[in-house]
């Protein structure tokens, strides 16, 4: 097992290197740099001045040297300087990530139990009334995009009922201003995971070993708990793990909508403002998150599914 994790960590590191290199090359291509120069120094610079600005800031050196320098700094924890916020990247990115982290935490803590429950209850008896009602509910919630449901919720709960606030201020979270963004993501996500869980549960309940268990004389409920649940959770587990990276980038819309200054907000701003170092740092964070959740997902998968564990 340790060997397996070690190998996966090694792959993770390699992937990060190559991905960050690709992003680095893309953001430091010449036209982009020229634009940056114009932005940073003086909009009406002559071509010569631009060239000398690039020279001065080290952008004229070979790409590998530049990348090496960035990598060296990044490995020691220095992600450079944000040209837009005019402070070190570290001071910008971590607080924003923390804000998004809080949002994600609440979303997942609400979504996972509810969606698994819905999926299992619906898939337990395929075609029953409960199944049909829950399935229709999940389809409706996943088919409404977040920018629609977000606006709808704002109108209903904030403008009309005046229950919650339509704006969520990062840093000072209250039940009042934080409910709507969480709700918007949760509603969409629940339907998605519930549908996955239902499909997996239906498949398991039709498996022959469930028949074996029933014909051993076990009651329906204990068959569901002892025999079906664990097998039915294998597929949704992977899907839930994929939610982490999806949430990180998927929060962009919701964060923009509710003006919640988190990671998604930052990502948009950095890309907008051609903030090279912040964009790179955001990319690295995203890659780390994707790969670690994949690693956790693989380990968990092996735990749930003994066929993987032993081969």
């Amino acid at each position, binding site marked *: 097992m340790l060997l397996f994790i070690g*190998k996966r960590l090694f*792959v993770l590191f390699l992937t990060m290197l190559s991905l960050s290199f690709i992003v680095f090359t893309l953001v430091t291509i010449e036209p982009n740099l020229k634009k940056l120069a114009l932005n940073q120094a003086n909009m009406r610079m002559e071509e010569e001045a631009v060239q000398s600005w690039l020279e001065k800031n080290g952008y004229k050196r070979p790409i590998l040297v530049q990348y090496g320098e960035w990598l060296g700094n990044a490995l020691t924890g220095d992600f450079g300087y944000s040209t837009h916020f005019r402070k070190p990247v570290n001071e910008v990115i971590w607080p924003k990530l923390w804000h998004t982290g809080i949002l994600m935490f609440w979303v997942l803590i609400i979504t996972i139990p509810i969606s698994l429950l819905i999926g299992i209850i619906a898939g337990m*008896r*395929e*075609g029953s009334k409960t199944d049909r009602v829950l399935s229709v509910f999940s389809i409706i919630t996943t088919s409404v995009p977040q920018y629609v449901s977000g606006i709808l919720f704002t109108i209903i709960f904030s403008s009309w009922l005046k229950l919650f606030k339509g704006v969520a201020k990062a840093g000072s979270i209250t039940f009042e201003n934080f409910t709507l963004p969480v709700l918007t993501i949760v509603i969409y996500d629940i339907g998605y995971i519930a549908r996955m869980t239902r499909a997996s549960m239906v498949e398991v309940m039709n*498996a*022959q*070993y469930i*028949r*074996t*268990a*029933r*014909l*051993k*004389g*076990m*009651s329906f409920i204990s068959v569901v708990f*002892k*025999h079906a649940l*664990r*097998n039915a959770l294998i597929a949704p587990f992977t899907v839930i793990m994929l939610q982490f990276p999806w949430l990180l980038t998927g929060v962009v819309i919701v964060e923009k909508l509710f003006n919640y200054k988190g990671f998604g907000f930052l990502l948009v701003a950095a890309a907008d403002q051609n903030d090279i170092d912040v964009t790179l740092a955001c990319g690295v964070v995203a890659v780390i998150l994707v790969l670690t959740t994949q690693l956790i997902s693989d380990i968990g998968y092996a735990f*749930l*599914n*003994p*066929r993987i564990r*032993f081969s």
Partner: protein
Amino acid sequence: MSIPVLEIENLSVSFMTRAAEVPAVMDFSMKVFEGDAMGLVGESGCGKSTVALAIMKYLGGTGKIVGGSIKFRGRDMSTFSEKELEDIRGSKIAMIYQEPMASLNPAMRISSQLIEVPILHENISKDDAWNRSTEMLQKVNLPDPERIMNAFPHQLSGGQQQRIVIAMALLSKPSLLLLDEPTTALDVTVEAGIINLVKNLSKEIGTSMLFVSHNLGLILETCNKITVMYSGETVETGEINQVFRNMRHPYTQGLLRSIPLPGKNKYDAPLQAIAGQLPLPHERPNGCNFGPRCPHLDKEVCESGNIEMQLISSNKNHFSRCARVDKIQWNEKSLSSEKKPKSSSGGTLLTVKSLSKDYDVAANVVFGGKKKGTVKANVDLNFDAKVGETLAIVGESGCGKSTFAKVLLGLENASSGKLEFEDNDIANTMVDERKRATVSAIQMIFQNPFDTLNPSHSVGGQIMRTLEKVGVGSSVEERQQRMYELLDLVKLPREFEKRMPRQLSGGQKQRIGIARAFAGSPKVVVADEPVSALDVSVQAAVIELLIDIQEKFDTTMLFISHDLSVVRYVADRVVVMYLGKISETGTTEQIFSPPYHPYTEALLSAVPIADPDIKKRQILLEGSLPSPLNPPKGCVFNTRCPNAIIGKCDKIDPPLQKLKEGHTISCHIDAKELSKKGSVFAQ
């Protein structure tokens, strides 16, 4: 008379689909007394598994008992509450299933799946349940019960898994055991062991059995009574020897005539298939369901309303549902049992010279890793095949017979050795490097007709595509003409051209498979278990068709199979393989009579035979097939061979004994010694 353990009276089961009510079982009656072993025979779709599940009252959401009653020890089961049913399931009535792998929970250890049975039904402690389970594992002859208790299902072989399922079923000493095709997914030698085990244990515990199977031979070996089902109805029932010797229903007779028996081959006694196919539940004819397929049909008698079961012989409990039972001459030989002339084989077409195929098993593809080992799928094969001859390659799963087919067809390269086809070595030419003539000269018929046809193309289109690929005909019209000829050849109506594969039955699909294989007038056809996925009555028709076509074109056929009775019937010569090596070669006569290689002997003894007059010597193989990653030293068969000489067979490779006329046996024991054991069969 005592109360029967199980009494089914006029049972009718229907499946309620959205479109209509589909009757699966109609007017089915049966009595099973204490100590009885009742065999329930029929082809797929006849409703035999539905009967078994109806007894358990487990018919899913759509199945319903719409008429009749099932009594367990005199009590009507329809009056049982859900709780009472749960108490009976697994303790009084237990079931053994067709696919052991699918019947065990893949995410739970064997121990927890076993101990929950006694804990549930007898309320005993976990430790007691554990001890009971390990005892039961010993009883089902599983070595090292403690290790097995801690294993997961996928870590065990198919035979071991089925032993676990049997142990699970017998843990609570049930009074009725339902077996639903318990050995269909297993190899013959494993099957023989399992059947023997079930017979002995049920006798020891005093369990009555209901044995559901399509295999008449198996039923004859295990049961004392039989019920034959056709299209949802019982057609004949009675004591086993009575029914086998004096069958009184044309369907039973048809079934028995369509299976090859030992001692019969294609030249002496051609198989007789039952014409037509099983009607769909909503297309059942008026009167006798078997009518349209029956050679003795009398429209006035047979199609005039319901036909009831009639008593044939009361002391043998023999009943038949045939309206003309008194009119038919039951002992009459069938019309077409004339002998065929034996065709002579021509010159050598295919020569296999010390052919070997290894697969490397690497630890990890991405990191390379160190090599874990080599699977020796084929080791030093030597044989040849002549023009127009049928050469059978026989062995259990994992013996390397399919690997050889892959090399021959150019799907794999050989590791060493030669494969000479018409004097060209093709052992290392992959199929896309081969000349078109070579490709169309070596064709294949696949095992599973259900997966080999593209579901979204018409049958005619698929045959035309093959014709195009093998370069037959220069225009669409020419190919179309040839396609019609091929449909004629496989005895399908030309209208089938427009049909989609889902509109065909299994036998018809396999005929299309045969048409495709013969599209380019091949010289060699590899038939990989071509009939093992088909029903018995259809099997016979497909085998006869294959033999006819083969003779017509003088094609060489490599018939890969594990079913020795079919092999005996079709083959001219046989190659017996075990774990990648050839253990015996010879003409069919030589293989099926002594001297036998000990493995051939065990294989022959394991095949169930549907003839009460033939007695066999029983040779049960111990243990399971060794891993091909780590084959035994010396003779590969020594770990399971009942005659192994310790110190010799497990150290030194066996010598190849060349007997008369091409008969070879690879064994340390001298052929003279081997022939002393005599024939496996005795009439």
